[in-house]
């Protein structure tokens, strides 16, 4: 029978939730790496027992942990993330040049076909690759050096590379997104990159047509529709039907233009989920009501999903890497909050239940559907 495993990264460790395919009862294991920040954990699609985890601390720096038994035991692997050649500069908050400095790994994306190959999105924004199970990391410096890098400027949360989308049918095509620079695409496996931000609009920035400088929060895509991208950004939800060459705003009747995560239904490529947040200045749900919004038509028309979610006095946030779907039938949707709840819906979002509560603030949620 199929089963589901939920990898939860929090401010104070990692937790692993497990259930059989009915998803009626859940066990909670953890904390793993208690007291450390776990920005992200993700399993290899090829070998789900292989899981990579980003463990970091303001005191003791970055570690990468690897499990080869589905998260039961872990071993530290390589943690040297050295920029390739002269690191150069990007813009600092005051507009002056600032040297690239490694801070942490925000996102780990295992290869679709090789458990030993994994990509890392880091702050200050760059992409690294390991082909030996995380022991050694090499920067894919074509991204940082493609031309606009010196103009990138960090958002309030840091200049992080937080989204990496791989393409099963076209392994040389990769999409990434950086806060607050924008989205980028490579067609040659990472040697060269192109900004893909046309059509995005961003608040009061003077040049809405700017090649970079758009604050992307998250991009999601259905594996069967690799050309269609959905984006939640600072200032709205957008979609692209041509692999990012042109974006169109599809916020429609959402209650706000702000939010962090976005996810696509596992079996319906035009059904998407977002969790609106009141504003960039108030990182909590509008009216204190935690609502997931679902569009079944690829945007513009949205319905609030509230059953089982707190509808009063709720002031948590849901961060960019903290929502995911399983591929069971009916499809499951999961998200975690900064209040330490992990919610799941097993009827495509119609009703929700808390799978875990009172965890540390949730940074990331990844779901593995196991055979």
């Amino acid at each position, binding site marked *: 029978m199929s089963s589901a495993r939920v990898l939860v990264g929090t401010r104070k460790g990692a937790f692993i939730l497990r259930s059989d395919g009915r998803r009626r009862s859940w066990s909670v294991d953890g904390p793993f*790496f*208690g*007291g*450390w920040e776990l920005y992200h954990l993700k399993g290899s699609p090829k070998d789900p027992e292989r899981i990579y985890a980003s463990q970091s*601390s*303001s*005191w*003791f*720096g*970055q*570690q990468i942990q690897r499990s080869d038994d589905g998260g039961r035991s872990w071993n*530290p692997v390589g*943690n*040297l993330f*050295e920029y390739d050649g002269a690191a150069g500069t990007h813009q600092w908050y005051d507009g002056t040049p600032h040297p690239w400095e490694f801070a942490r790994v925000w996102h780990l994306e295992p290869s679709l076909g090789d458990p030993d190959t994994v990509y890392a999105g880091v702050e200050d924004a760059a992409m690294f690759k390991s082909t030996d199970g995380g022991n050694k990391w090499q920067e894919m410096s074509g991204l940082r050096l493609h031309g606009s890098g010196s103009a990138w400027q960090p958002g309030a949360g840091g200049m992080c590379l937080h989204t990496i989308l791989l393409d099963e049918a076209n392994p040389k095509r990769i999409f990434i997104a950086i806060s607050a620079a924008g989205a980028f695409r490579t067609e040659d496996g990472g040697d060269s990159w192109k900004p893909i931000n046309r059509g995005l609009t961003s608040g009061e920035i003077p040049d809405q047509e700017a090649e970079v400088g758009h604050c992307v929060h998250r991009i999601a895509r259905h594996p069967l529709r690799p050309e269609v991208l959905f984006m939640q950004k600072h200032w709205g939800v957008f979609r692209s039907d041509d692999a990012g060459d042109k974006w169109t705003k599809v916020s429609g009747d959402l209650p706000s233009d702000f939010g962090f995560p976005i996810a696509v239904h596992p079996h319906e490529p035009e059904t998407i989920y977002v969790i609106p947040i009141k504003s960039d200045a108030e990182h909590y749900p509008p009216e204190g009501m935690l609502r997931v919004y679902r569009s079944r038509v690829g945007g513009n028309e949205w319905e609030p999903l509230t059953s089982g979610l707190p509808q009063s006095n709720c002031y948590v946030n849901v961060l960019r890497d903290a929502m995911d779907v399983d591929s069971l039938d009916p499809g499951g949707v999961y998200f975690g909050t900064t209040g330490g709840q992990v919610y799941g819906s097993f009827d495509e979002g119609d009703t929700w239940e808390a799978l875990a509560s009172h965890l540390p603030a949730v940074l990331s949620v990844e779901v593995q559907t196991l055979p």
Partner: protein
Amino acid sequence: MIRVVLPQHLRTLSSTNGELFVELLEEPTICRLIDHLEQQHPMLKGTIRDQISGSRRPFVRFFAAGLDLSHEPVDTVLPLSVQSGREPFIILGAMAGG
């Protein structure tokens, strides 16, 4: 033997309990002591000092023999009481409020 006390998170990371014992054949400096620790426990690389610059991480402190050695040059020779093992060399995380 030099006695070294690691903070809790680094004891967990390196799967060590209690104090570590280090024997240095060369003149015992702060740098040589940490070199030795990193050779014995490679997962500590990058946790006490930056792997590229070699600088002490900003929120890591070195205390020994009633002294704060955090800001001393890395080639500072360890106090005699630490060299003899009478007192430990303490590596710890800086205090943080909140």
